[in-house]
């Protein structure tokens, strides 16, 4: 019997071996040749392993997943960190973990499709010339260099149609962007690439870039493939170098100096325009308290869900705190210092739809900035028949592209290549940007009306419930179906 059993297992094991061999061979073949093949076909080969062999598997590691192992293989050959674009890959508590509690009998609802729900938004109300927007969403700073000329223009025109603002981003102003933008933020970034006092005079607001949610504590990146002659000239750099911007501002080091620097910009702009500080979300409560002491008109919190055009993968994944936690802390810091209504709070990071906009407003933001999702309105990660060939051009399928840093964007958004740039029609793209911004506002309005608000800014944390313990603890909102807020003394939300 025993012999028979042994024979049986042997007979079974043999075909398994034979079948496993080609897969191993395929892996060996791709090894050391092409990282893209390795990630695409290599993983596919693993998942296509014969069912029979799976029968004898104990399981697979959830810590050392095939992706993690691949990553180690690649890094051990490269000898450095890996760069990529896009935003966070891993799962964190975010907007999906919250839900609205609309009016039923306890609250009076507003007619969803007819009655008014005001969306006018003011950033920096104390300034002589505050930034007044028709909708609570604007397009955040993305540099010319990271984005193509066509993409920048489309964003400017689309947001102007929607009655909103754009931001210059790093690398200076392109005149057409200013021309097409109804309202325009000028960014004063650490590297000061292309920073020009003449352009500062043309701005409707000045934004100090202090950190980015996606890679808090790091400067910007622009890989050499995108530093064309034009971009290099604007930034006073040698063409083709890998631009790694400084992480500190050149002329101030801490909050005391920053307060003086803000005063300088105010003097240079005749105390007219609002000054905004853009902070990456880290120790939000303390950072915002310090920021308030520097006396800006607005504070912008960029949470870890935020995107980037190029950044080390490890920084993208492992820096910052989630937006739902950051907004609440920032709001508390501003309110405690008695600056509610004087200093605006702008939030950015991981906003995908009107629901996210409404939730962020409810948690305490005064305005929302979007970057990553509006690029998708420009066609990011979209397959266009007869135009794009994602697998051949970028090595992955549409929907999985994170290769902004290579400058080979198949849809002409994050590239400087003259041929690829032609794939983006600024007229149509501007229309799409407008449609998207308009939709975000409509969706947020819809939820606000359902919650009984005639002004979108009247949304409040009471309108929300948390679906998970983590979300409840982070944004101090009661767990759905209970009156319990995780982490608060006695769980009583009203004592927060």
């Amino acid at each position, binding site marked *: 019997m025993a012999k028979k059993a042994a024979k049986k297992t042997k007979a079974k094991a043999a075909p398994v071996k034979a079948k496993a061999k080609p897969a191993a061979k395929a892996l060996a073949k791709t090894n050391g040749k092409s990282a893209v093949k390795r990630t695409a076909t290599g993983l596919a080969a693993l998942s296509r392993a014969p069912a029979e062999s799976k029968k004898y598997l104990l399981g697979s590691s959830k810590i050392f997943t095939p992706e993690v192992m691949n990553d180690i293989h690649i890094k051990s050959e490269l000898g450095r960190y890996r760069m990529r674009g896009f935003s966070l890959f891993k799962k964190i508590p975010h907007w999906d973990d919250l839900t609205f509690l609309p009016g039923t009998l306890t609250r009076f609802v507003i007619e969803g499709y007819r009655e008014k729900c005001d969306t006018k938004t003011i950033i920096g109300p104390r300034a002589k010339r505050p930034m007044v927007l028709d909708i609570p969403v604007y397009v955040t700073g993305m540099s010319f260099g990271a984005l193509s000329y066509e993409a920048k223009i489309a964003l400017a025109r689309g947001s102007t149609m929607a009655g909103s603002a754009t931001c210059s981003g790093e690398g200076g102003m392109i005149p057409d962007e200013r021309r097409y933008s109804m309202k325009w933020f000028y960014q004063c970034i650490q590297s000061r690439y292309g920073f020009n006092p*003449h352009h500062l005079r043309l701005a409707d607001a000045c934004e100090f870039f202090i950190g980015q949610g996606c890679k808090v504590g790091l400067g910007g990146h622009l890989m*050499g493939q995108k530093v064309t002659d034009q971009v290099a000239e604007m930034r006073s750099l040698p063409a083709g170098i890998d631009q790694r911007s400084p992480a500190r501002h*050149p002329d101030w080091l801490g909050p005391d100096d920053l307060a003086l620097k803000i005063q300088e910009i105010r003097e240079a702009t005749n105390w007219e325009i609002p000054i905004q500080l853009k902070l990456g979300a880290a120790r939000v409560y303390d950072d915002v308290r310090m920021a308030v002491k520097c006396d800006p008109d607005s504070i912008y919190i960029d949470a870890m869900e935020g995107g980037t055009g190029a950044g080390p993968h490890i920084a993208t994944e492992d820096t910052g705190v989630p937006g739902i936690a950051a907004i609440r802390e920032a709001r508390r810091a501003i309110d405690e210092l008695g600056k509610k209504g004087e200093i605006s709070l702008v939030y950015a990071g991981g906003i995908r739809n009107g629901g996210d906009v409404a939730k962020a407003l409810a948690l305490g933001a005064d305005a929302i900035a979007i970057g990553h999702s509006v690029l998708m309105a420009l066609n990011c990660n979209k397959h266009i028949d007869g135009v794009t060939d994602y697998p051949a051009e970028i090595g992955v399928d549409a929907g999985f592209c994170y290769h902004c840093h290579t400058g080979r964007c198949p849809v002409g958004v994050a590239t400087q290549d003259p041929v690829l740039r032609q794939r983006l029609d600024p007229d149509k793209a501007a229309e799409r940007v407008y449609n998207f911004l308009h939709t975000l506002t409509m969706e947020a309005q819809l939820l606000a009306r359902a919650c009984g608000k005639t002004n979108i800014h009247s949304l409040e944390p009471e309108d929300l419930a948390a679906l998970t313990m983590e979300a409840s603890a982070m944004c101090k909102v009661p767990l759905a179906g209970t009156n319990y807020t995780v982490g608060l003394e006695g769980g009583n939300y009203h004592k927060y």
Partner: protein
Amino acid sequence: MAGLTTTKQAHVSHDLGMHTEALRGKTQQRFFDVTQEVGGYGYPDALDVDFNKRAELDCEKLDTKQINSQLRDLMKRGYGTIVLQNPGSKHSIAVGILNRLNLYIEGSCGYFALGLLDGPNVKVKGRVGWACGENMLSGTILIEKNAGSQFGAALRGGDIVCKGSVGARTGIDQKGGNIIVGGDTGSFTGFMMQRGRMVICGNAGKNLGDSMYDGTIYLGGEARSLGVDAVPGEITDLDREWLTRKLKMYGLYPKKGIGHFKKIVAGKQLWNYDNLEPGEKKLVL
């Protein structure tokens, strides 16, 4: 460090036709054809002033806001030569002037003095605090005594001269123009310098020219240490000629002459970290 190799990516991408636009000019972009539409953005704030009209402004009882607004007012009225008396080391004095002007400051200034300038010639009798002349596009600034840290931060054009010694991080992120220091400088001088020239007649502190991308530093004395990617360059007759002319212009005559000046340039090892992975490289280059 692994992977610190100089690649010729710029050349390769150039061969592939990625750099099509031919550009002229130094710092300002003109390639979008601003004139294409009516109302192109020029420089509307440049006031027309007359150098022969002279005014004096006593700043003793004025705060920064008043000093700057009165300065603007004088310039609007066409005064081209303005003397500021008793500046009292106030912060942000005379920032954001975007036209020609002869400005004399009879005393010392605080932080961020003379920032964001384009055009004026300024002479400061006393000392200046941090970040004097930051982001200047053109013009000249001459400081008679010592200056604080971040002297000429993110300078993009013009000459900024300190006859005394300056603090740390002088010329940080310099993008053009000339920084000239008669005395010594502190640590991290020329940090992340991108373009332009810097002349230090005295000694420099630690990490001179750290992470510099490009540009030239001329050093008369000794540096305590050179920063990452800063390497000694070969000084030529052309350099010496320029140095003599420039220093004479501002009345600086180093005791030992300029024969012993050293030149420090970028090693260009930080230009490309070999940033692409094999798979991406195949697709791009």
